[in-house]
């Protein structure tokens, strides 16, 4: 067994020596030190083994630089006529890392409501176009039920190098699971990346803004304009509009269409955050001690005043409407 030395400076110097970062003087010092005691060489060998062990820890991650370039190119707003990227065979890159996710295989149900301003037609590379009402069957077995006046474009290379689609209108997606290739709904500079196998998307032209709700599973929403992205899990709601361009995220939403909310031992502050986002109202709390209380209740489609009233009763508090979409709990 090799000894331990309390002096960290020695380890710093030996580390530099082993990694070829030491200067001439430092190397000379270590060479002399090695002659002093046989145990010193054993320690150096032992430290070298620690460094080598760490360095041999590698996994292989597949990267497709040309496909990535094509994705980037699509976001760069290059005028027509500029040279276009070409498809290419994926390359394998050794990544010296332990960090790898197991991609999610759980079912995902997502409701996406988008504003008209976010629609983006990826005409450069789209080869298949579907118009509703109809059910589109894609190569990978995914099935997309398009509502009336809805269109879906499937980009070139679908199921071979990517699974990217663009949607205008409303559609229910039933996506085949593929852990190595996430399903991506492209919405201008915003993307909804589904890390699951089944989800629902609805896009309503004319409504300003973006709403993504996850009933179960997990999705990633990416806004390339703001260099912002967020992972949403079950019960989470994301909203964004032109007046408030940053993603606003809240949770405890079981069904956004029915305004079904579910709170279990949830702090009032969190409850109010959810209600504020779902009903687009402001709720002030006059009696701050109320914020320490937790709430155990479910809502299922009540109007805002019914919700505030029920909440006040649960908390043994009073409420008052002080303006348009403005309430006070006291």
């Amino acid at each position: 067994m090799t000894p331990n030395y309390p002096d960290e400076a020695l380890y710093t110097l030996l580390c530099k020596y082993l990694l070829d970062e030491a200067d001439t003087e430092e190397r000379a010092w270590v060479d002399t030190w090695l002659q002093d005691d046989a145990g010193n060489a054993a320690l150096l060998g032992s430290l070298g083994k620690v460094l080598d062990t760490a360095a041999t820890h590698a996994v292989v991650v597949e990267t497709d630089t040309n496909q990535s370039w094509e994705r980037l190119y699509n976001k760069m707003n290059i005028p027509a006529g500029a040279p276009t990227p070409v498809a290419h065979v994926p390359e394998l890159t050794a990544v010296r890392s332990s960090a790898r996710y197991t991609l999610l295989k759980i079912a995902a149900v997502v409701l996406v409501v988008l504003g008209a301003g976010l629609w983006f037609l990826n005409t450069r590379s789209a080869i298949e176009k579907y118009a509703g009402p109809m059910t589109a069957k894609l190569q990978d077995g995914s099935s997309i039920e398009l509502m009336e006046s809805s269109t879906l474009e499937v980009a070139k290379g679908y199921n071979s190098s990517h699974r990217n689609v663009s949607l205008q209108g409303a559609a229910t997606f039933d996506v085949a699971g593929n852990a190595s290739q996430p399903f991506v709904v492209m919405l201008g500079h915003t993307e909804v990346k589904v890390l699951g196998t089944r989800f629902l998307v609805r896009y309503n032209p004319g409504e300003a803004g973006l709403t993504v709700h996850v009933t179960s599973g997990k999705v990633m929403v990416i806004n390339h304009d703001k260099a912002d992205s967020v992972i949403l899990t079950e019960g989470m709601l994301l909203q964004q509009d032109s007046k408030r361009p940053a993603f606003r995220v809240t949770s405890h939403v079981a069904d956004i269409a029915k305004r079904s909310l579910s709170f279990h031992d949830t702090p009032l502050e969190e409850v109010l955050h959810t209600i504020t986002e779902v009903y687009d109202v402001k709720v002030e709390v006059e009696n701050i001690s109320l914020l320490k209380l937790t709430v155990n209740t479910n809502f299922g489609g009540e109007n805002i005043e019914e919700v505030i009233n029920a909440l006040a009763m649960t908390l043994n508090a009073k409420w008052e409407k002080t303006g348009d979409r403005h309430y006070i709990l006291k």
Partner: protein
Amino acid sequence: MLDLQTFEHLFKENHAQCIAFATHYTGNAHEAEEIVQQVFLRIWEKRDSISISGPVKAYLFSAIRNTAISQWRKDNVRSERETFYGTARETATQASDQVKELETLYHKALERLPDRCREVFVLSRQQNMKYSEIAATMNISVKTVENQMGKALRILHAELKEYLPLFTGFLF
């Protein structure tokens, strides 16, 4: 000003390395890809004003690191992450029980390192970066890198030294 051809070359030349680097911070290749896309898109959008001084790789790595850490902070607020930098572990190979045990020992020891110390160590050993490159990427001095490496090596050695004979020829 950066033209399209130069930018494409810059991207293709560095993409694989950038993904490998970003994966250390994101824990998976998909998020790494998003981070790298964000960084390059930002460079393109600021091509009129951007000026990359020093080695391009250090600039890219530094931008990726900052973006990944900022993303990680936001995600921590919004939703619980399944992993964090340098701690998630799942091997790609079908390892034997003994190898798995040794792997677990190594990772546990790595997890016990202070955050910055672990980051420096992982960049050195798993990205094979020179001290000067780590310093530029993390915006710290080379001296700090040296000290953090010494500290990491002392702690890991103390944790693993009894098992080191078993690590001979050990590939994760």
